[in-house]
């Protein structure tokens, strides 16, 4: 085994070139991590929104809540189904909700974007423990009051507590701000379901969310709804619903993959370039080591380790460079609902580890050809290199 200090001191000896490689790879990894963080944020915003235990009832064939309706008659039937969990007061844990997308002006874009306004009852809060009021107070039933998600308040005009905005013919008062822990609800405005229904002249709900008492109840409720010809409704788990919403954001995922693939390729080329230079400037010394008795595979391994180490440092640099994007919050349009999904760039531990791992992998691949060329040099010839 070639002593590790040989590799490390060589990297130090050509410190300028090493630093440039580390930063080169670092920037590549940082861009890649930002893309992954974006993907991660979108995934979190959608998949963590839904619980696997909760059931979501929608119109048969509806892809999203905005294009679904559930009649009040259906609500009353489902409310009485056996297997629906009850709260401490013996009331069924069932949340009828109205979901409407409407356009409001953004701080950086006066034309605005669609935002989901969700009409809910008190049950909605019991069933979504992620949603917490962080400022102001709860809306009161029967009034034109709303609470807005923190990320909506940050991105849209007139959405601070005390502000009033126009939605349809009515004026709405913002009375509170909530945080939904990175879930899809972070992109929404919530109001009282009955008042919202009257104001928008809706006599049907968009969806129902309910908690079954157990897994068996989940299946029996699902079967009961499916088999009731009056209802024409479909049931899925809330988790499944939000996972499916992600497919509307497939473009981002594909983009992330394409950019990541190109970035890895760039990192491999960067490492390869560095290592070819390193090998060619050390031909004589590598040939000397082989003459002394170091085997081909030992030299190969030494050069691969050196390459992987440079790439590892590049990966660490990339994570450090990418950390500031963590604080960026932005939005994209969910094409299923035509409304904004707010999310954070999320460079978490897994993304960071993956970034470093990909850097090392690209170091190994990038170092392979130069290392092979170092190990295969004819000794007698390479000894004459100056």
């Amino acid at each position, binding site marked *: 085994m070639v002593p590790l200090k*040989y590799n490390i001191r060589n990297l130090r000896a050509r410190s300028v070139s090493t630093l440039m490689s580390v930063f080169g790879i670092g920037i590549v990894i940082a861009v890649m991590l930002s893309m992954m963080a974006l993907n991660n944020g979108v995934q979190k915003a959608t998949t963590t929104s839904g619980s696997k235990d909760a059931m979501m009832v929608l119109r048969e064939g509806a892809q999203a809540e905005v294009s679904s309706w559930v009649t009040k008659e259906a609500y009353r039937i489902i409310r009485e189904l056996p297997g629906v969990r009850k709260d401490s007061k013996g009331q069924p844990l069932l949340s009828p909700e109205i979901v409407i997308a409407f356009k409001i002006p953004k701080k950086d874009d006066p034309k605005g974007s669609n935002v989901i306004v969700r009409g809910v009852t008190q049950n909605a809060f019991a069933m979504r423990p992620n949603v917490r009021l962080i400022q102001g107070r709860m809306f009161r039933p029967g009034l034109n009051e709303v609470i807005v998600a923190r990320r909506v308040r940050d991105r849209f005009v007139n959405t601070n507590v005390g502000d009033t905005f126009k939605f349809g013919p009515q004026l709405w008062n913002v009375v509170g701000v909530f945080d939904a822990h990175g879930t899809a609800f972070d992109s929404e405005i919530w109001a009282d379901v009955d008042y919202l229904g009257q104001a928008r002249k809706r006599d049907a709900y968009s969806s129902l969310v309910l908690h079954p008492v157990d897994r068996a109840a989940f299946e029996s409720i699902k079967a009961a709804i499916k088999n009731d010809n009056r209802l024409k409704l479909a049931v899925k788990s809330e988790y499944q619903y939000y996972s499916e919403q992600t497919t509307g954001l497939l473009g981002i995922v594909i983009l992330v993959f394409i950019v990541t693939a190109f970035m890895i390729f760039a990192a491999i080329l960067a490492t390869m370039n560095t290592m070819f230079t390193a090998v060619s400037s050390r031909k004589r010394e590598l040939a000397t*080591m082989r*003459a*002394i*008795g*170091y*085997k081909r595979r030992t030299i190969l391994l030494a050069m691969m380790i050196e390459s992987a180490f440079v790439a590892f440092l590049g990966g660490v640099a990339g994570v450090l460079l990418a950390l500031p994007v963590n604080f960026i919050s932005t939005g994209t349009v969910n094409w299923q609902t035509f409304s904004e999904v707010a999310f954070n760039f999320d460079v978490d531990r897994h993304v960071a580890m993956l970034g470093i791992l990909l850097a090392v992998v690209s170091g190994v691949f990038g170092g392979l050809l130069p290392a092979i060329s170092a190990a295969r040099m004819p*000794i*007698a010839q390479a000894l004459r290199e100056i």
Partner: protein
Amino acid sequence: METLVEIRDVRKVYKRDEFDVPVLNGITLDVPRGDFLALMGPSGSGKTTLLNLIAGIDRPTSGRIIVDGKEISRFSETALASWRARHVGFIFQLYNLIPVLNAFENVELPLLLTKLSKKERREHVTAALNIVGLSDRIFHYPRQLSGGQEQRVAIARAVVTDPSILVADEPTGDLDARNAQETLDLLQRLNEEFDKTIMMVTHDPKAAQHARRTMHLEKGLLVEMQEMAAAQA
């Protein structure tokens, strides 16, 4: 005297593009144990090629090379590397020290291929640096040493494993007269006191005078042999 190196009808042909360039045209030579042989000849005569073949860093196109009873020309690449580690010490014109390792670490490099403990390695390295008179430069890096000192470190590296044979390719080619003299004296001492078999390629007739005998290569053939030791006797 016992023969250490037997070379039998060795030919070496290099391929340059589609042309065959013959370098050695059937060399037969015996080198006894304890010999100090100088190989002379004009550029391109094949002296370095012959030295490389004996040292096992190149292979003959045909013919046999037997060192210490082993036909090294038939060894695999890996076996040859292990064999070199145990049996050959290399001394180069440009010293070929590893710039990022200090004198001690450079000399220790061949010992890392042995099973010696760290303590044993330290003892061997210290002894080798003592022999070449550089025990006060142990932690100096090559760039902090003069050419002559670098070559002495390289000689310490060559002898530290106690190899059967030392091969030196123009060991004084890059040194001034005084350092060249010191290097040759050192090689002569290694031959006489430590009984090392040495094969040295040189252009310099004065350097060759330190050897026991000199052979001339011309156009790939051994053309002349001077039994220096016999002549001096």
